[in-house]
């Protein structure tokens, strides 16, 4: 069944979606404006695949900015960007066929 997501219960993915091998996978990436990020952490629970976490380092204002801790899992769904109060996240997405 090419291109049809398979739903399985035991999958740890939040939306229980497994993609078959021939499916075009969305591959995403976010760019965080470190200096404008205030480290409010609202993007962290908003991410369905658990990509984002706060950095150990701080920016010039002393905030722990958010970054992609797990970049391979990002699907470019833009959830983090649309909840960000300061609009610091830019999202890119590309369809990758496997």
């Amino acid at each position, binding site marked *: 069944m090419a291109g049809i997501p398979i739903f399985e219960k035991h999958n740890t993915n939040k939306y229980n979606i497994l993609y078959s091998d021939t499916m075009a996978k969305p591959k995403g990436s976010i760019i965080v404006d470190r200096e404008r990020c205030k480290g409010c952490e609202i993007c962290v629970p908003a991410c369905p695949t658990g990509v984002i976490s706060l950095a150990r380092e701080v920016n010039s204002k002393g905030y722990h900015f958010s970054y992609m801790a797990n970049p391979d899992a990002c699907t470019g769904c833009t959830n983090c*960007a649309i909840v960000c*109060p*300061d609009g610091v996240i830019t999202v890119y997405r590309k369809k990758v066929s496997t």
Partner: protein
Amino acid sequence: MAENTGIKDVVRDENLVYKKTSVLTDKVMHYCPGCGHGTAHRLIAEVIEEMEIQSGTIGVTPVGCAVLMYNYLDIDMQEAAHGRAPAVATAIKRLMPDKYVFTYQGDGDLAAIGTAETIHACNRGENIAIFFINNGIYGMTGGQMAPTTLLGMKSSTSPYGRDVHMMGNPLKMTELVAQLPGTWYVTRQAVHTPASVRKAKKAIRQAFENQKLKKGLSLVEIVSNCNSGWKMSPVDSNKWMAENMFPFYPPGDIKLEGKLVGKE
């Protein structure tokens, strides 16, 4: 293969799916980390960009946390005295009926000091949009009790919680103005999760579109957090808001196209 696709292949202009709108300026907002004001500002800016009305929009901000909104939105803005934004917006809209006019008010402003202006502007049915940010507290001045503070909710002037015998009941301003014949569209939204942000954006868009119809006033209440005033972390304050604010201020449409939802 997917494994060979690095971040550099994805981060390219042709793959861009979301970027901060150019209607927002590059200034860093003065709001506390995690404040819902920033999200509400961005949604208004995105709607203005989508409708291509950047040169035809006038915003009115009175006193409150959003008093410096003119720094962040690249549109014409007018400052108003505390609570008097609907009156100023009325004048602007009547003088320039082709412009899109909105006010952006907090709950201490719209529901306390500006109650008279709000109710009369709604009752007259002015063709403006009011964006009402409700966080149940006077955020800017240090977390004092507002008319919208929930019963039992602690604030700096009600340290043992709001007591109904001494301080009265919280005011449901949005339900109140929905009863008035002048309002055309009244809704309550929130900006704490991606789904609620998408819904709130649709409501803001609707409020701007309604100004073309000239049928009456549109009021969008956005229930927001005030993590500094509530003395919580941003994520905890959003959870607290969903658990405690939503039972009293349920999100959803209250009046659509001049008719109360759920009543024929």
